[in-house]
């Protein structure tokens, strides 16, 4: 089982500070990106996945994130697996 704390957070950690500069719009308002926050990533998982892949589910392109180099395919696949498995938060492995 893929969890946020043990598997996804390490992938996103290098980009937390940079993405805090980006305002995410939703039906609730706008808020700064918070890739280190489980609830945030869970709420915006669809948008994040499209940006990681550079293509949405309808085959339309979108600027890829992270802006430096795209994540390796295996990390994107891990994020997709996390989504498919219900986006569990998990507990830290000691």
């Amino acid at each position, binding site marked *: 089982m893929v969890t946020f704390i043990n598997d996804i957070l390490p992938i996103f950690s290098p980009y937390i*500070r*940079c993405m805090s500069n980006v305002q995410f*719009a939703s039906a609730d*308002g*706008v808020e700064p990106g918070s890739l280190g926050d489980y609830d945030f990533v869970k709420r915006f998982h669809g*948008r994040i996945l499209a940006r990681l892949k550079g*293509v949405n589910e309808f085959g339309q392109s979108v*600027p890829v994130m992270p802006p*430096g180099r*795209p994540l390796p395919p295996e990390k994107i696949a891990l994020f997709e697996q996390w989504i498919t498995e219900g986006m569990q938060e998990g507990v830290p492995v000691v």
Partner: protein
Amino acid sequence: MKDFKKPAAQFRKSGENYKGIKALLCLVFVSCSFLMNNAYGQHSAKPLPRKNIDSLTSLEKAAYLHAWSILKSRDTFDMGSYLWQAYVHNKPSIILRDGTKAVPGPCEHGTTLFLPWHRAELYYFEQILQQTDPEGKITDANGKTGPGTRNVTIPYWNWLRYPSGKTFPKMFEDKSSVLYRENRFALLDTPLISQKLIAYQVYFLNWLRFGGGPAESPGFGDFEAQVHNPMHNAIGEDMQEQDLAAYDPIFFSFHCFIDHLYDLWLSNHSSADVTSQDYYLRGTQPSYVPKPPGFIAPRKGGQVMGQTDNYFDTKALGYYYEIRGKDALPPKDIMLQYTKNDRQFGAEEKSLHTKLLEGGGYKPSSNPRALILVKGITIPGDSVEQAVAVFAPDAGLDTTNYQVDVYLHPKGTNLSLTNTKFKDRYLVRSIVNWGKGSQRHHHQDMNMGMDMGGHTAPKVSVAMTDELNSLVDIHKKSLWVVSVVVTELEKIPQQKVKGTLDVTFLNEKK
């Protein structure tokens, strides 16, 4: 991947329970607008026309320039200033004089929010223009007192027509004018975009194809990729970059015409088809500007300009488009000929997209330095739900602006950039990636000391479902080829574009 043809119903609205409240607020707002004055003078209750900039009267021109002059003289951090209004589009953050951080914008692109966001931005900008000097009593930096700006509206630049000046409308070419910007290109001696392409998109594309992917599954719509992006790239150095574009005064008249086209789409379809319409539109604007009808304060977060569905009715926002004579698009019944779906792709001398490009200066590339990528495919035995060609730039390639032309042709026929007959017959689609400055645009604080490894230009995907499916009956199991031509558009290319091509089919239909 999901079907382009079906609107993403699950993305339309996530907050249905707000609908009744919004309707009530809208009714209250419209009623009160006939009675109330705001602090800057009486707000006109009657919707005002947005006109072609070349058809403004002398008084209207003077009022528009007077309003702009006042805007330009205001302090940078005055939200009613020209610079702040440019920041709303250009900047995700800015440090104020007291050292705190403000969040002016930035704009939305590559998503269903693209058109609503720019409409909201223009609404606020127009309101600010009107309130600069409603009574005509202020002397501006040019020494002119008045005229009154109460009825000023943003004039549109119809870039589908030949310019009244050498390259742009005359008002933008006057070097002494507040509207002048010296780093514009002198390339537009002909309308770049074809009227037929615009008309086809406005009349016949669904929202997903026209406006872009929903907020939770973002993606570029055809209008943005095939029209908006090439135009931005062609106008000037500022307009060529996402984080500089709104510094050029022509930006507002350019986007005003885009807003008119959005209005046309809405009048030919249903606003109910617009996805994510309860999403908020980011932007920090002056509090003295009346909120749009139906505005509901967000439950969380920073400054907003309202929600998408606050902006469907232009008359409720105080304006409408005056479209006369040659400013009108070709009628829908004339365009119907381009919707016949009994054509086999490649059987006619000119593909649909080639025909739609006729009349505009934008053409598929003939640049000998273009990158050409080729991938062989087998025509499937049955129609597919989705066929997409995806060009992926190499990782680490700096952001750049480039054109992507996609061809689909039988194996044994080779792409030649100088063979016009080949290109006319087999062109699927041509789009432009407008990416210059986007890294700074969304990641402003690039002095964070982080090595981001450069920037990766976005993938560009082009749908070719209809074209492919038209070949199934006669050419099933045959070998065909997808050829993609990628051309640098920047005047001084920073890096040669490199990348890979992938063609994916989704779910052959049973």
